[in-house]
């Protein structure tokens, strides 16, 4: 016997579809009010920029590379803490344990500085690849006309892109470094490490932010000028690989003159990290304003490049 067809009254179905949006094909409801403060217009720019990079496979590869270093340090802190707990009160093994502690991760400013500096290599590679996605494509696909036809100011666009790039960098530098700091402190017998190491905490935050914001600003300038991935990679390589080699050679030839190091972005970051962590260094110890001025010049040039290229309307002569 054939089954009787069910009679369904469509109107009865609506209450069951709670939260469903019924779209009328031919009418528009009034637009929602502006619910976000105008000054926060940069946030969608940042969120979309970050999302565009994060969903790329290359990001996952570099994130994985960055995590390897972090996981190694994290595992070593855990391993040494566990070993120390097991060997507590025993004379046997204290010597090798102390040696391993000094060798692998000491919990001092130097170890956190070296961790972030090590991550900087991965950051440099990631930014070289991501520059076109984050910024360059906006110029190539004329997205700026779209952005600036909305109530968005130029500084908000810059801030949005800067936040997106800085968050990306922070995910590989500042955040894992803070995680290591917390992990190291928690494995101690007391919480004294956190109290005694305020300078280290300050150093991590300050150096992490400098690396994030500094490298992001540099990238925004380079990407706005060059726009295409291949060009960005070449100039990025020039700044972070070729220039340090050349300045090192000249530095040697000039019998150790430090001034050539002002052209090396890595050296400037290194000097800043030493200053933040309170690590003594002979580099520019007598002239602390030189590296600050050089860093300001690098970032100023990048800002100028970004600012001068970021226009809604391109005037063709």
């Amino acid at each position, binding site marked *: 016997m054939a089954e009787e067809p069910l009679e369904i009254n469509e109107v009865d179905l609506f209450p069951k579809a709670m939260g469903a949006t019924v779209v009328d094909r031919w009418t528009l409801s009034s*637009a*929602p009010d502006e619910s976000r403060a105008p000054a926060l*217009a940069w946030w969608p720019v940042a969120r*979309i920029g970050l999302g*565009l990079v994060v969903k790329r496979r290359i990001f996952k590869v570099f994130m994985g590379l960055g995590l390897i270093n972090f996981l190694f340090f994290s595992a070593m802190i855990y391993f040494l803490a566990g070993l120390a707990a097991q060997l507590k009160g025993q004379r046997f093994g204290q010597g090798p344990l102390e040696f391993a502690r000094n060798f692998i991760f000491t919990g001092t400013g130097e170890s956190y500085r070296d961790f972030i500096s090590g991550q900087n290599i991965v950051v440099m590679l990631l930014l070289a690849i991501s520059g076109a*996605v984050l910024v360059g494509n906006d110029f190539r696909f*004329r997205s700026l006309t779209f952005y600036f*036809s*909305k*109530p968005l100011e130029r500084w908000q666009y810059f801030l949005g892109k800067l936040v997106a790039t800085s968050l990306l960098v922070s995910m590989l530098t500042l955040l894992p470094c803070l995680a290591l700091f917390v992990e190291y402190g928690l494995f101690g017998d007391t919480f004294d490490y956190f109290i005694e190491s305020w300078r280290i905490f300050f150093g991590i935050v300050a150096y992490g932010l400098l690396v994030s914001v500094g490298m992001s600003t540099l990238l925004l300038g380079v990407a706005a000028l060059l726009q295409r991935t291949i060009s960005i990679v070449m100039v990025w390589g020039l700044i972070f690989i070729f220039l340090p080699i050349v300045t090192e050679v000249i530095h040697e030839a000039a019998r150790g003159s430090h001034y050539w190091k002002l052209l090396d972005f890595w050296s400037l970051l290194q000097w800043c990290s030493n200053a933040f962590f309170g690590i003594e260094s002979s580099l520019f110890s007598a002239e602390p304003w030189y590296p600050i001025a050089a860093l300001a010049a690098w970032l100023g040039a990048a800002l100028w490049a970004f600012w001068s290229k970021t226009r809604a309307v391109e005037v063709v002569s």
Partner: protein
Amino acid sequence: MSELIRLEKLKRLYGAHLAFEADEVVLQPGVVGLLGPNGAGKSTLLNMLMGLLAPSAGRAWMLGFDAARESRKVRSRVGYMPENDSFVAGLSVLQFVSLAGELCGQKAVDARRRAHEVLSLLGLEEARYRLIEEQSTGIRQRAKLAQALINDPDLVILDEPTNGLDPAGRSAMLELISRLHREQGKSILLSSHLLGDVERVCDSVVILDRGRVLAHGAVSELTSSSLRNSYRIQVTGSVEACGKLLRARGVGLEAIPARAGAPPRDYIVTLPPGADTRLLLEAFSAADGTEPACLLSGLQPHEENLETVFERIVAGGGGGSADG
């Protein structure tokens, strides 16, 4: 909304090159066409109105706001569809339109709901989850229109919206534009070099050429014969005698080409200011019985279309304002 747009001694120079100049133009709400050949200054004007380009001199108001000084308020209330493709690469159509809503200050969830509505209105339901840069020109054009509508603007500015569309797509886009005004009550500023597009959807028009506003006013007024006092006449007899007769009374005469080899019999005549059709009738009556014969066999008001108006105004270098 009393005035849609007001321009006062607005000027934009690129170096020494004049890109746009207008003494005083006032446009009322409705569907306004911005008509001119390529390089006439249409996009320059739109960019100045949106506050994207600073004027070299003068001021512009849109929806009562100073376009240069209150640019943010203008951009909050206006939807702009640029001429060229202007996308955020890597986003789907839905994400792109939602982003436009968020940039207008809407919450992400509200912007997404509104984007769904606008995309449905424009017939983009099926394309909404596809990458925008991989879509056809027709879909990209409609996506650009969708992002312009996301904030429920009082005025929608469309810069060459039918660019790159096939005839069917072009017709659909023009129908959409008409419906936006008819059903949604939006004012529209349509910039185009296609006379047919403007004539089909616009109530009033601004005619530009080489950076100057040559004429502006309602389409019906610009194409109406009453403004220029012109008529179409048919004559029989000696064409030369007719011409001489009318020119002697200050009547402008323009022959309408006839079949190959045949003398023109149809003319468009423009009467001097203050005169009416009695002048024509008196002229031909006075010529009655003279040799060679010259007879008026037909007379009707001359109705122009926008194309002939445009050609006449551009050729003449200006036609003034139809609204005052």
